[in-house]
Structure formats: structure tokens, C-alpha cells
């Protein structure tokens, strides 16, 4: 089903993430949505067809970035400066209408979206980068121990210290286990 998501279905997933992240205290910048979609995909297999690569601030999807811009063109959301944080994504009326029209579709993903929002909703960008990079590395270097993955992560992103890398690799292992119970 996920591979066949159409444009409106993808938009509702993104809008729903924005809504849930806001409820958890997030200011919902572009980075938050990027990482939230990444977690949704990697933890629960909810794939809207966005390919992620390791880029600035960790895993990033250029397709998702274009999609968000398209949603802005379609007037499902706006991007507004939110001092002192950055530019935040805001769902607007047409986006709400879209979510209402696709409520049956969204119901299937309520729990997974809620889980992701709960876990990362109150995180700052720097920690989001570390946590999502830890997940990316863990997926790429499956069955490798914490120390190996932490060093790999530090080598990929030298500005993330080895200590931080270790800490976030351990956090992601816990998160992955918790997601299996959802």
C-alpha cells in the first residue's frame, strides 16, 4: 500500500506529523519533519516513496523537500519564521480539509505517527540530527556493536563527538525495541 501512495496521501501523512509534533511541543521546522518522516519509514515501514541519504543534519530526503514545497504551492501549509527557532511549517485550512477528506486513510497510521511524535516532539535540531544519524548508521551497519557504530557515526559526522555518538546509538537501540511493541 505504502508504495502506491498518491500525492494527497503523502501530504496527509506529513500534515498529520506536523499536527502531532506541535502537540508535543515542537516548533516544527523542516528538519523536524524530515526526521519524523525518516523515523516513520525506518521504524514502521510507512514509506511514502521518499529516498533518504546522509546529508546535512543527518538523513535527508530531497524528494520530501520538494514535496513540502509542492504542498506550499497547493496551499496545504505555510512556512513562517518563528523566532528564535527558525522557519516552522504550519498546516492551514486547505490542509485541514485534505486531512478530513482522507481521514480513513490516516486512521491506519495514527499509532505510528503518535509514537514518532511522542519520541522526538520536544527535541532540538542538534539532537534530532544525532538520533536520526544513529538510526541511519544502525540500519546500514546491522548487527555491529555499539562501539563500532559509534565510531562509524563519528567518522561520518566529525562534529558529533564519539561520546555523543555512543550515547545516541544506545538511545536508538532502545527506541527500536520500543517501536516493536507498537
Amino acid at each position: 500500500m505504502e508504495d502506491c501512495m498518491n500525492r494527497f496521501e503523502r501530504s496527509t501523512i506529513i500534515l498529520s506529523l506536523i499536527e502531532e509534533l506541535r502537540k508535543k511541543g515542537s516548533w516544527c521546522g523542516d528538519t523536524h519533519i524530515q526526521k519524523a518522516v525518516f523515523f516513520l519509514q525506518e521504524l514502521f515501514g510507512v514509506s511514502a516513496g521518499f529516498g533518504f541519504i546522509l546529508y546535512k543534519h543527518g538523513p535527508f530526503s530531497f524528494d520530501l523537500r520538494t514535496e513540502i514545497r509542492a504542498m506550499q504551492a497547493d496551499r496545504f501549509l505555510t512556512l513562517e519564521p518563528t523566532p528564535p527557532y527558525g522557519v516552522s511549517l504550519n498546516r492551514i485550512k486547505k490542509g485541514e480539509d485534505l486531512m478530513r477528506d482522507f481521514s480513513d486513510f490516516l486512521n491506519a497510521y495514527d499509532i505510528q505517527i503518535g509514537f514518532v511524535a511522542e519520541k522526538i516532539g520536544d527535541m532540538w535540531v542538534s539532537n534530532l540530527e544525532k538520533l536520526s544519524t544513529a538510526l541511519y548508521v544502525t540500519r546500514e551497519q546491522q548487527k555491529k556493536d555499539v562501539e563500532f557504530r559509534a565510531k562509524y557515526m563519528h567518522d561520518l559526522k566529525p562534529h558529533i563527538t564519539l561520546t555523543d555518538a555512543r550515547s545516541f546509538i544506545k538511545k536508538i537501540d532502545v527506541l527500536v525495541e520500543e517501536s516493536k511493541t507498537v
Partner: protein
Amino acid sequence: MTSEIHEFCDPIHTFIRLDSDERKIVDLYPFQRLRNICQLALCYLIFPGATHKRFEHSLGVMELAGRVFDVITNPFNIHSKVKKIVPKKKELEYWRRVLRVAALCHDIGHSPFSHTAESDLLKEGGHELMTVKIIKSNIFKKIWKELKLKSDDIVKIAVGQEKIQKFSDLKFSDWEAVLSEVIIDDALGVDRMDYLLRDSYYTGVVSGRFDHFRLIDTIRILPREDYNSGEPALGVEEGGLRCVEALLLARYFMYSQVYFHHVRRIYDLHLKDFLKSLFPNMMPDKINEYLKLTDNEILVEIYKASRDNNNSSYKEACRIVKREHYKLLYKGNREDEEISINALTLIFDEACKKFGKENLRFDERYIKGGKEDLPVLIKDGRIMSALMCSKVLNDIPPVKTNYIFASRDIYSKAEKWLDVNRKKILNKNKKDR
């Protein structure tokens, strides 16, 4: 070994200078081939001056890349927190060469008529994959050895992280990521700078211009302190922010007036139809066969087909050669989208039922890329996101196409039909929901 400096006269940059080693790359066939690939495909059918080629564009990108490199590596311009990623003086000469060569070769893998049918006729990886293959081929091996350049470094910087990771596991250091941004970055990339200026000049659409001199002068490598991250990225000093706005406004104007012009779009669709009939099994991906294809070979086939009404591609060819292109029947608009979110699709589906799918074409495209969230060095030393400093950058609207085209055979009937039935179609969907 003495090296000469060669000069090309160029209407955009006045002079483009390169040394004898770079000249050797220009003289090779894969680069000379770009003399026969139009930058804007069939856009010259709407803007008669738009006959410029990828050849001069690539030279222009090389020229600008060298200028940006000199600015960002000037010791006076290096921010203290990114000093550690900038190579030592001895290595800088190597990286300057790599950057200029990468800029020169960044489009070397383009198919005929540029982007027109890329997604349908090239394997996944598109022209970037062909660029990598060509750069790493035997044609260039000797020259890279002679110039002591690593082909991996060139391909990384020429193609960039986004595209190269689709078909390679090459990893980028922070420095390499910054260098690839010099060419391909959304806001500050010299590829965009050159094509906007060049396309504006040759189409005659003046609103594509901006002050690239001042912009380049203010480019810096900055740490992303606005995101509490030490990661370096290309940004500008505060004095260059207006130039960034001008560039992105120029981009908006060029997209809405040229690249997404409705007649341009329908010609692209007709050309795509023709190319798909010419290459039913996709374009060749063996380098020697691929490099034989330029716009010239395709145009010959188009003209041949248009003169032979037994040719299977006769109709597609006539649409291009005899200006029998489909006409714009409907353009999406806010009023209709308020009634139904997918107004365009609904009208297209109903029109197809009425007039037959072969008589209609649908075009919905969005401008690629996201909001240009580059770092800006404020006068007091803080680094902020450009989107926090500039209302203009926040308010530039994203551009999209939302067109339905109809063949001339049914156009008058379709126009009348739409006039009578449009509201009914949109409201029917509302009721059904």
C-alpha cells in the same frame, strides 16, 4: 612546462579563461558534443533567441566556480570555526583544479534536448549517472593521470551528494560537500547562477538578471550555528542577502515566464512522445553509442518523420515541425481548487471520457528544491538562517504548472464543453465525497 591562458569571449561573463590543461578537456569529443545540445530544448520555438548550448553554459559554470573558490578560500574570509575543514595552501591548488574541472564536466552526460525525456529514456541515475560513467571512462583516464586528478573527487563534486548516492557509495567529507555546493547549491550554486543569467540573456526575459558579482563577493563557508550544529555550509555575509533575494526572485520569474511557459511545456510533452517512439527500449547507455546522440540526430529523425505520413511517429513529428501543438484548454486556478482539491485531475478525467485520451495532455509539475535556508553572517557575528533575516525569501511563491492541453481537432468543442460543464464536474466530486 609552460601553460598558456586561453580566452573565450562570452556575452555573459565577457571573458572565460582557462589554461592549457583545461583546454585539453574542452577539446575532447564528449565536451565538444555539448555544442550540439540546446540548454533549453525546444524553447527556441517560443523564444527565438534561446539557441544557446550546454557547451558555453559549462564554460560559464567553470568560470564562476573558480571565482567562488578564490573568495571562500581567501584567508580573510574564512570563519574561525570552519578553518579546520579548509585544506592547507599546498592542497588548495589541487582542489581549485578539481572544482573547475568538475564544473566544466558537470553536464557532460546530458542527453539530447537536455531534461526533456530523461526520466523515461535514461536508466535510474539519469544524466548524472552518464556524467559519472563518462568522467571515469577511458576517454578521460589519460588526462586525469596527466593532470594528477582523482576521478572520484571530480565526480563527487560535479554530481553532488543528492544524486551520486543513488548509484554509488562514495562518501563526502565536509570539505567535499562544500565544494559540491559551490556548483549545485539551490541558492548559491554557480550552475544556477550561470543558467539564469544565460537563459535570461538569450530568451530576452530581462527579469532573470541579478547582481552575481556582489553575490559571489559575499559567499562564505559558515558553521550552522543557527541549528546548533558545527556542520559547515555555504552562506553569505549579511551584505549579500539582497543579492540572494534577487537571484531567487530571478529564478521565480524565469520559471513562471520561461521554463513553465505553457507552450514550452506542450512542446516538451510532444518531444517526449517522439523520443519515446524513437527509443522504445530506452536510450543506449553504452558510452560510445550514447555520445553519438545530440539534438542534431533527433532533429533529423523528426524532420524525416514529418515528411512521411506512413511513419509511425508522423503525428508527433508534425506537432513539432508544423506547429500543430496541442493548445491550452485549462489552467488550474485557486477558485476551482477551493471547490475541489484535485480540480485538474477531475476535469482531465472527464475530458478524456468525452474526447478520448489521445486528444489530451496533462501537465502538473512543481519547481524542485525547498526553501533556501542558507546561513547568513550578521554584522554582530551571529549566524542566522536566511529565512529568519529576509521576508522576501519567505514570501517568494513556489511555482507549478497545472495545464490541460487539447488537440486542435477537438479544441473548439472542448472549450465550449468545458465552459458549460466545469462547475458541474467540480461540484459533483464535492457531493460524492
